[in-house]
């Protein structure tokens, strides 16, 4: 079965209000082109989650696509500063930031991936995050254990280095939480630097960590992570990050979304 689609077709599979786990971390191997296409198509009410984000969640906040963000950290790093549109959207009450520790995002996804309703977690000291969760009595020992609920993404959206037409895919370098997301989500959308033959994927052996059976769409999007990096092919682009951060109003954002397309 050929799952190859254009990026426009792939993005149109996502409905308003759905929950997306977005792969990569900060500016590393993020599905930037796909996120821009979601914004261009005017998606609304999305709930997004990952451990640490910047460009993707900041842009979707700016474009008015989001109802909720679940994350441990949303910011560019020292070179570029904070994520201005994420902050403004939360402060103005337009986006709900469900603050997590990176570990609790992972634990919620793990529960979904493991097919269990909740995940016991380690102690979080006096963090205010503790107030968000329930405790249970340890049935096999002493004391109370914090537990987090399973969270079920409708979609895992991942940018990978290689995939075949059936959505079997390889990730080179750090996988971050992409595999956990792929297991937890109902369905997967992949953007890939290159669509290759099944034989080529097969030869990668254990690096082929995404089996195609949950993949609904594969779009070939070279440089699809820019302005982020895609090891080993390209580093992130400081100029393009700064170009994005210089956008100050909705009209300029609209032009940006129309111009910066694969």
């Amino acid at each position, binding site marked *: 079965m050929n799952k190859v689609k254009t990026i426009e077709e792939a993005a149109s599979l996502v409905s308003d209000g759905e929950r997306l786990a977005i792969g990569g971390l900060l500016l*590393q191997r993020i599905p930037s082109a796909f996120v821009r296409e979601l914004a261009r198509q005017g998606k609304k009410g999305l709930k997004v989650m990952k451990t*640490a984000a910047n460009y993707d969640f900041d842009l979707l906040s700016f474009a008015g696509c989001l109802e909720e963000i679940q994350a441990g950290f949303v910011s560019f790093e020292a070179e570029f500063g904070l994520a201005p549109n994420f902050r403004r959207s939360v*402060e103005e009450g337009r986006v709900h930031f469900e*603050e997590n520790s990176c570990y609790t995002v992972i634990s919620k996804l793990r529960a979904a991936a493991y097919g269990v309703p909740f995940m016991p977690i380690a102690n979080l000291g006096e963090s205010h995050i503790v107030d968000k969760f329930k405790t249970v009595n340890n049935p096999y020992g002493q004391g109370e254990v914090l537990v987090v609920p399973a969270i079920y993404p409708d979609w895992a959206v991942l940018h990978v280095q290689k995939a075949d037409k059936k959505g079997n895919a390889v990730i080179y370098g*750090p996988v971050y939480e992409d595999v956990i997301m792929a297991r937890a989500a109902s369905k997967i959308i992949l953007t890939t630097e290159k669509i290759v033959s099944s034989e080529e994927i097969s030869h990668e052996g254990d690096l082929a960590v995404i089996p195609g059976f949950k993949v609904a769409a594969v779009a070939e999007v070279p440089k699809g992570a820019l302005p982020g990096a895609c090891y080993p092919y390209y580093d*992130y682009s400081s100029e393009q990050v700064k170009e994005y951060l210089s956008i100050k109003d909705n009209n300029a954002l609209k032009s940006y979304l129309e111009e910066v397309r694969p």
Partner: protein
Amino acid sequence: MNRASCIIGSGLKVGITMEYSRADMMIVTMARLLKDAENAFMGVASNLPFFAIWLAKKLYNPDLTWLNIPGGIDPSPSSPPRTTVHFELARAKKASITLAEIFDMSARGELDVAFLSGVQIDKYGNFNLSHIAEGNRIKIQFTGGAGSALVCPNTKRVILWRTRHDKRSFVEKCPVITASGNIYRVVTPIAVFKKENGILFLDSVHPYSSFQEVEENTGFPVSPATVTPAPTADEIKLLNQFDPEGIREIEFSG
């Protein structure tokens, strides 16, 4: 304080031959704290800890296991990256681990040292990276604590670092606690704090600063302490060779 005036304004002579910056002072102080550490973890936006761990492995503790977000165990980065999640931090790694597994190590109690930071740090060593609220709404949204809510109470020794030392950063009590736990030291551009009996005490003041400067810039009581030992020539030489562009000064610019 912009970068130029930081290097010129706070560059100081050691003996008659050497200059160093506030970044250098913080890096060497943190590196020396790793002399007996088994492993050390650095996370996102961790520019100075990157240099501290690198320097500690070069000079003090070659067997220290370096853990980072791209998951390269004991990498050999050829140059300092501008982001501490760059894949340069996995270059020539000795083994691999995922970020989720590093958190699991912390949960199991296997993390010895971790470097964390806060926008606000209070006298209990608790810190806030979450937000400032006004009634029911969020008035100022910060970055979020990344892994710190887990890592802080579950790591044996946490080194907090902050490139600002002022009353807005060092407060009596954090209005929101993102993380709390096993604080070992707090390193700032002018001082080092130690946690004892549940609160932060001033451990040392850097050679170019003064107790008065620390007291004027800290929102909780402090008592006089010793002088932090200045950077050595070896430490500065190694840092300059590895980082000729001054990437370690990024946090001090703007």
